């Protein structure tokens, strides 16, 4: 199996259970950093050589990998993954389903989006979480209060809110950036609203203007300069383990503002077409062990913060346990609700390029004072040039 960090650890931890089913078959887990892993997998598919039997794919790469015909359609026998569909959290299964109803991968973990906020800073500003959540307008208004009371920034970067708002109100059969006919959707209201809110936040100096995972971002989280974070539930594990363990007890989790449901990350397991039938059979067994075995799914959740895709794990006592880093909050219940409410968006092979173009358009609005309409129109034209390549 070829995987990237966290998924590799989850796979290795499943080997003893695998050995109990197939004592004579060893599993080797080849691990690479996430970008290198996907480059290596794309090269393996392109050249049809050095293909692993099981290939982990992160959700942001799913569109590119699903476009080619290099991955096995798991909807067909002998896999017939459709039979297991009710067991998976709905959006994750739909995410792996293409326009032609092929299922290119089995979901193995999801990243329900959550709003993490500094409880103490919010209290200092005399606001409640409800104020922060009610609407995006209130979100900004609370941000102004926070800045006045504590000097902390509402968000790390104004672009964080765009990433959520463009996910709000995506019609079925539509992608984030392209519609079902491959036409870019950059000038639609989703983008206009997202950009407008980001511009408001920037104008009021409510964002720290730092990039996610940068030194300044990490430092801002540690020293209370950033009051809220919008991310996948998995971020809590990182914060508690290495990012900001000293802030233990100060953070809380909530649903994203205005009842927005968004996913941040998620992993899938695919089988390359060009491996032998016997290997494929065992590879499928291993995929089932990782994706459809409740014990393994819960073990991965406990050890790697990999949120389960199996709905029947959602009533395990672990979901009701308090999380010390979040001041004893039972936040997993929130994330469970989010996971069940998120809707899949169609992935597109040009999503990576489109995300880059949208970020650039936003940058021009926030830093160069370009009008939102002109900036989005330029982005739309750039994507129109790309379609069909």
């Amino acid at each position, binding site marked *: 199996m070829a995987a990237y960090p966290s998924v590799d650890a989850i796979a290795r931890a499943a080997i003893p259970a695998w050995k109990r089913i197939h004592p004579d078959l060893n599993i080797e887990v080849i691990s690479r950093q996430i970008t290198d892993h996907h480059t290596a997998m794309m090269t393996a*598919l392109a050249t049809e050589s050095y293909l692993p039997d099981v290939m982990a794919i992160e959700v942001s790469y799913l569109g590119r990998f699903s476009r080619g*015909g290099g991955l096995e359609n798991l909807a067909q026998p002998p896999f017939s993954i459709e039979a297991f569909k009710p067991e998976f959290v709905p959006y994750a299964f739909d995410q792996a389903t293409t326009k032609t109803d092929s299922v290119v991968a089995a979901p193995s973990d999801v990243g329900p989006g959550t709003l993490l906020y500094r409880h103490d800073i919010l209290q200092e500003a005399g606001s409640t979480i409800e104020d922060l959540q009610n609407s995006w307008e209130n979100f900004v208004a609370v941000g102004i209060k926070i800045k006045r009371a504590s000097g902390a920034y509402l968000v790390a970067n104004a672009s964080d809110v765009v990433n959520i708002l463009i996910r709000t109100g995506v019609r079925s059969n539509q992608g984030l950036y392209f519609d079902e006919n491959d036409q870019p959707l950059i000038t639609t209201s989703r983008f206009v609203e997202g950009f407008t809110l980001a511009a408001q936040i920037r104008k009021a100096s409510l964002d720290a203007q730092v990039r996610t995972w*940068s030194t300044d971002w990490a*430092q801002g989280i540690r020293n209370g300069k950033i009051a809220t974070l919008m991310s996948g539930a998995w971020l809590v594990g990182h914060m508690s383990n290495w990012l900001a363990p000293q802030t233990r007890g100060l953070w809380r989790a909530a649903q994203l503002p205005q009842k927005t449901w968004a996913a941040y990350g998620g992993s899938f397991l695919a089988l390359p077409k060009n491996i032998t039938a016997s290997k494929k059979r065992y590879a499928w067994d291993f995929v089932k062990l990782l994706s459809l075995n409740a014990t393994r799914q819960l073990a991965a959740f406990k050890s790697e913060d990999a949120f389960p895709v199996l709905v029947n794990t959602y009533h395990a006592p672990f979901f009701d346990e308090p999380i010390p880093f979040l001041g004893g909050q039972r936040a997993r219940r929130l994330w469970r609700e989010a996971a069940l409410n998120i809707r899949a968006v169609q992935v597109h092979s040009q999503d990576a390029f489109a995300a880059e173009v949208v970020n*650039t358009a936003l940058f021009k609005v926030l830093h160069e004072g370009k009008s939102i309409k002109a900036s989005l129109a330029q982005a739309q034209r750039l994507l129109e040039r790309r379609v069909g*390549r």
Partner: protein
Amino acid sequence: MSMKIPKSLRISPAWAPYVLLSPFVTLFFIFGLFPLGFSLYLAFHSWEPASGLASMSFVGLRNFEFALRDPWFWKSMGNTTWLALAAGVPQHLIAIPLAVFIQAGFKRFRNIVVGVYFMPYITSTVAIAILFSSLFSTDYGLINQALHGLSHIPVLRFLVPVGPIDWLGRPQYVKPAIAVIVFWRYVGFNVVLYLAALQTIPKDLYEAATMDGASSLQQFWNITLPSIRPMMYFAVTLSVIGGLQLFDEAFILTGGHGGPDQAGLTTALYLYREAFDFDDFGGASAMSWVLFAFVALLTWLTNIAFRPRNRSA
């Protein structure tokens, strides 16, 4: 006592050159000629890599047409040229006098001094990435701290920016930040080249000039510079080729993305992203051949600028 090789294992003199050359030729074919040929082939094809090699289809000149009309490609060419000039020219303007200074001023410790300057050239890019990301950090970086310190000096107060600079988050600062790293990495390499050239200049030329009353500056302009001209040609050509293929420094400092508003997106980085991030191997290959034509053109111009002049006139 000498061991005799059995006759059957002996290579005939006629075959010996081919056998001895074969390791290089084999490696060159695999890692040199084949990728070149394959990239040229790809430049005329559309390819969905996740579908395997069989999915290639011939598209004629469409990839070149796309490359030449792609705004981001031209933006990357502009960035690359800017960086090649901003990082390349100072390298030589500093390396030449520095080499002269090291040659004249250091006898016993010359190798240590040269070693210090050469060190960045052989330092791992990962170490450089960690070092410079930390140095260029907005709120906690040493560079902004130093600038802040300078702002307390009355004379410098007006020259130093008031607030911390977001080096990697603003287009106007990303390119200078990359240029600084490129300069820092390669100035030592050029010093080594120029030192080697300086050591080939006969000492009696300087002795004769001193006796004729020539000043140090006159000796530098009339003896040193003309004598190291062939090395300047070599070093500048390397800088032109290296500068136009700039990848590592831009990649590590911008996290592989090219920075805000693609300000740090060099052409080499863009065509890498085009292939491996955006899956357009055909377009990327076409761009690489356009870049090759540009590099060839500038190398030819460098040749014209530095080729030996006819002194007979």
